[in-house]
């Protein structure tokens, strides 16, 4: 699976300070660390980029490209910052992201054909995030059709089903899994992508990794193509390279509804099994899900 490094993100305090002070070294250190960890793309999240969007977009892309030649996923809802950054990308970038919202369709989406980028398109519309599989299908069909009309080919579209935190809405976690399964039949040729760590938003920090990793394997099993993820989690990268096949196999059993005898497993195996059951909605989530 393609991994997009998430760690240059404006919500991080280190990053927001670095961006405010135009601290080249701090950003470059994060870029290098993720490159060495094995990221296939680097996500550069600028958030709304209200102040000096044009200068910021350009600065961030240049700063990162000085130390790595990994392709960039440029992440902002500000079309001015987006365009300024896209202009400078040396490798074919990923525009992150557009949606079915009216202003996104008119302000953001046309930048993809203009700069020959690939583009993430989410299921969000002006009505918000669709609550179930059917409404996700409805919204993405509409939005992709609109993108096709702008000359964007399915092959260049990475569909984002929108991952919500398991601590907030367990049902949505399962809906996204189901959506992933049917996506190739709906829109042949499109790729898919998720903001993986969002599944563990709201969960205490030491417990986030196992949620992210388990969900990654589950989504991958249902066909996920790529994830914006914490590539600085070595276990996540190892799993993505095909490491720990026994964990992958266990999660497969759980997803197929087969019985797994917890007594036969080691601590790690039990943790992955418990986590998969929570993500499937079979067990009610609590922050103490690994302890029961």
């Amino acid at each position, binding site marked *: 699976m393609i991994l997009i490094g998430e760690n240059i993100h404006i919500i991080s305090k280190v990053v927001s300070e670095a961006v405010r002070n135009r601290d080249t070294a701090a950003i470059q250190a994060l870029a290098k660390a993720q490159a060495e960890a094995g990221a296939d793309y680097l996500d550069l999240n600028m958030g709304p980029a209200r102040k000096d969007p044009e200068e910021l977009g350009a600065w961030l892309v240049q700063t990162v490209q000085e130390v790595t030649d990994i392709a960039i996923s440029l992440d902002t809802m500000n079309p001015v910052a987006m365009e300024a950054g896209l202009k400078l990308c040396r490798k074919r970038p990923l525009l992150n992201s557009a949606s079915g919202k009216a202003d996104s369709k008119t302000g953001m989406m046309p930048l993809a054909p203009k700069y020959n980028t690939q583009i993430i398109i989410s299921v969000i519309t002006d009505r918000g995030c669709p609550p179930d599989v059917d409404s996700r299908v409805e919204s993405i069909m509409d939005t992709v059709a609109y993108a096709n009309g702008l000359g964007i080919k399915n092959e260049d579209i990475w569909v984002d089903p929108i991952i919500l935190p398991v601590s907030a809405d367990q049902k949505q976690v399962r809906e996204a899994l189901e959506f992933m399964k049917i996506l190739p039949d709906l829109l042949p040729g499109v790729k898919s992508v998720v903001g993986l760590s969002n599944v563990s938003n709201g969960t205490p920090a030491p417990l986030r990794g196992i949620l992210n990793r388990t969900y990654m394997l589950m989504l991958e099993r249902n066909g996920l193509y790529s994830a914006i993820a914490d590539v600085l989690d070595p276990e996540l990268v190892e799993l993505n390279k095909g490491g720990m096949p026994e964990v992958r196999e266990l999660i497969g059993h759980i997803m197929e509804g087969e019985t797994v005898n917890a007594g036969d497993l080691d601590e790690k195996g039990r943790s992955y099994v418990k986590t998969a059951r929570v993500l499937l909605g079979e067990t009610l989530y609590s922050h*103490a899900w690994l302890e029961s």
Partner: protein
Amino acid sequence: MEYTAPLETYSGSVKEVVIGKGDRSVKVGGENILPLHYFEGKAANRPKIALEIDDNGAAGWSEWVLEPYKDVVADPVKWALKCLDLGADLICLRLESTDPQGANVPAEIAAALVKKVAAEVQTALVVYGCGDDKKDAEVLAAVAAACSGENLLIGPAVKENYEPLAKAVAEHGHCIIAQTPIDINLEKELNVKLLKQLPPERIVIDPLSSALGYGMEYSFTIMERTKQVGVIHGDFAMQIPIIADLGGECWKTNQARAGREQGILWEGITAMSLLLAGANLLVLRHPNNCRMIKEAIDGKL
């Protein structure tokens, strides 16, 4: 051919919690059915009603709910006896006077009072602290020690103080009230943590009860889901009886304080709703509602 109606049955059952000792003990929980679905399976115990008293002379109580008790509120022992006369299955004593924002009565005085009530009133006792987590940890630990072996139901244990409280409760042979702020995930988390210190037969869930018009439907949903998760889906950490501590919540609303009939109805409707949602133990203030809810439980309404 004779028609037999299909019956839903479930794999999970709620643990039975015993409060009090000997022949004055009260049992709650022990059902493998959804609330009041007696036709579906076994319910070892019908829901129970506690009438509430406090150690602060009913300060702040609405005049309408004070009427039946006005001669006895200064003396918790007399007040408790009166509540039993009026039909309560057990008594809920709230240590309102220990509130640091109020009289801030020290732990040992509160503990001595609970001991006195437990000794002089032959009843099972629920003891609620004032709701300040630090003060409660101190007061309720002292209560647990002073009443060692009385098997009180003591709370609220919250995220901030459950560890020392559960330790005191375990050590002195009581049961604990696990309280979380109307959130099913936090409720489960606290149960999981408490289950490391106490068996499920010594825990009762307080998911927080809101009054009609003040978010009662949230309390309803959480109670309903707790039963579904525990009884239908067999989640061990959720197979624990529920206490609905609703009397005080109802009687502090302007609507309840506006008049006798409306006040009694406000509490009665809230109680009836939370009974349907799955409460195993209801804490009420007005004796009319104690009678009414008992009739409802027995199918006589």
